[in-house]
């Protein structure tokens, strides 16, 4: 046995001597080799445009005209002289908070219900709740736009059955973003439900059983076992949700724009940061200004994501 072991351990050493790379080094090399197609794609489609956008953000560049280097002037204008940009960021943060929090709460409740051992037709319910996620956002947006129509839309019709006046939804600056939030909650909670279901199924059954034996109530089990052990799933869902929320665009574009009115209304109440970037870049064709706005949004997303990791991440051991 000893010579065999010696032979096996000496093999790689011989290779190291010959090729100058250890096992770890060769594994790393192979890893990069396999990763290289994806990395190349990432570099071309993400990194390169990002670097160029950063570069353009320091220029005054009307598309078709000459580029003039203006340093940080675009950033100064965005941060201190452009209330419309601040309003768009505010709208985006409002949407993100008021859509992500209820979406995750609803997804968690539904996931727990679907994870219950007594529920029948669990697969059918999972499918039903997941269907909106795989439906075209544009199609869903148009349907919700019709449903939210204030005078004859189905939602206000139902509200009026109870003798209540329906809000103006997308026609009212005070309600328009709430209409988009409502649609987003309905559409997205199925996705987070799947994440939570996977997390719930990974929690060892023995821990819950032990708590039951110890006399813990359902709420105590949820509060002290399920919620802490679900933390990685909650963190993942929150990070994805917030990043998606901060990139709000399609819903607003579809639900508030028309051939005769620019999206983001009424009174800019639904204009998101991304929509603002698109409008600032491609309407007056100010490529430098749009690039600067895009970079500020990127920084905002980075900061919010880092804060989420700090606030939400909890270490635990089974």
């Amino acid at each position, binding site marked *: 046995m000893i010579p065999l072991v010696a032979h096996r351990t000496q093999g790689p050493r011989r290779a190291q001597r010959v090729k100058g790379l250890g096992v770890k080094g060769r594994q790393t090399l192979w890893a990069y080799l396999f990763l290289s197609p994806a990395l190349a794609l990432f570099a071309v489609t993400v990194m390169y445009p990002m670097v160029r956008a950063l570069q353009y953000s320091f220029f005054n560049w*009307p598309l078709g005209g000459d580029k003039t280097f203006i340093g940080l002037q675009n950033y100064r204008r965005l941060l201190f002289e452009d209330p419309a940009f601040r309003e768009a960021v505010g709208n985006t943060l409002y949407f993100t908070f008021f859509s992500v929090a209820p979406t995750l709460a609803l997804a968690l409740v539904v996931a727990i219900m679907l994870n219950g051992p007594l529920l029948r037709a669990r697969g059918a319910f999972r499918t039903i709740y997941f269907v909106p996620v795989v439906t075209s956002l544009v199609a869903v947006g148009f349907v919700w*736009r019709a449903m939210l*129509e*204030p*005078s*004859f839309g189905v939602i206000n019709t139902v509200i009026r059955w109870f003798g209540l006046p329906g809000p*103006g*939804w*997308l*026609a*009212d*600056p005070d309600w328009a973003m709430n209409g988009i939030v409502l649609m987003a909650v309905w559409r997205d909670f199925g996705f987070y439900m799947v994440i939570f279901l996977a997390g719930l199924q990974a929690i060892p059954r023995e821990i819950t059983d032990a708590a039951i034996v110890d006399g813990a109530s359902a709420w105590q089990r949820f509060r002290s076992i399920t919620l802490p052990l679900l933390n990685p799933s909650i963190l993942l869902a929150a990070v994805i949700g917030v990043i998606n929320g901060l990139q709000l665009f399609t819903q607003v574009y579809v639900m508030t724009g*028309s051939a*005769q*009115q*620019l999206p983001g*209304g*009424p*009174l*800019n109440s639904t204009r998101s940061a991304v929509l603002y970037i698109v*409008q600032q870049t491609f*309407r*007056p064709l*100010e490529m430098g200004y749009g690039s600067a706005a895009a970079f500020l949004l990127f920084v905002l997303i980075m900061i919010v994501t880092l804060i989420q990791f700090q606030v939400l991440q909890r270490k635990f051991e089974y």
Partner: protein
Amino acid sequence: MKLADQYYALPTDVQSLLLFYNDDLFREAGLDPTQDFSTWEELRRAAIQLTERDGDQLTQAGLDISASPYQWYYSAPTLAYPDGQVADDTGEVNYASAPGYQTWERLTGLVTEDGVDSAEFLAEQSKFAIGKAGMTFKEYTFTGVYNLTAPDLNFSLHPAPPVADTVYAPVATTSWAYAVSADCADQSAAWEWIEFLTSEESQRTWVAEGGELPSRKALLEDQSLQEDPNVAAGFASLEDAVPYDSMGWDDAFAVQQQIWDEIVLDEQDVESAVDRGADEERALYQRKGLLE
């Protein structure tokens, strides 16, 4: 189109801005759909008469204006100033002065005071096309749109009455124009395409089937194209039409939409909303390098 006395582009898609009546709703309301309105007050009274409600809720708009009012923004102030929306000599935005304030006050008053339409009534729908509005103000090309999408709609075209007390022309007009860039690789092919688009034959087809007005002056005299009274009204509107005069397109509309929304949805004072919008439009032109 001329620049420094040189022709450099040929126009197509000529549009004038006209008042469309739903003739059936006019008759139902006891109004005569063959008559033009000569004053703003006449139009206003008719719009009120055409408006129907069930309790507090609108069931028929007297005038479809809330969903797509932008044509009014640019045409009405254009007609109130001899040099249009933007002053020719200074490049200043004209509408932040007395005739402009009056125009904005009267247009928005249709919604805020007379309630002939509401942003919450059939929001974003073409109320006129679905027979839920007595009138609308649109570009001539909508004759083609309505003929295609609402074949049962019985409508007629009329010149709109002047919105402001002081006006210099009855109708505003727009058009696209085709030019060939100096960088174009095949100049002759490009001009051949423009020649085809602006040819008499193409324009006859557009007039007959596309809901367009001709850009060739010679065709305006051709009575055979004007058998339909709506086409005849479109042709007649071009006689004294003046071009919509601006330095922007949808970027300027966005500013004017904001003025409308601030007055109608946010109940802001007309003059301050118009002044703020004019400042913003001026700043837009400065950013674009069109104004000092």
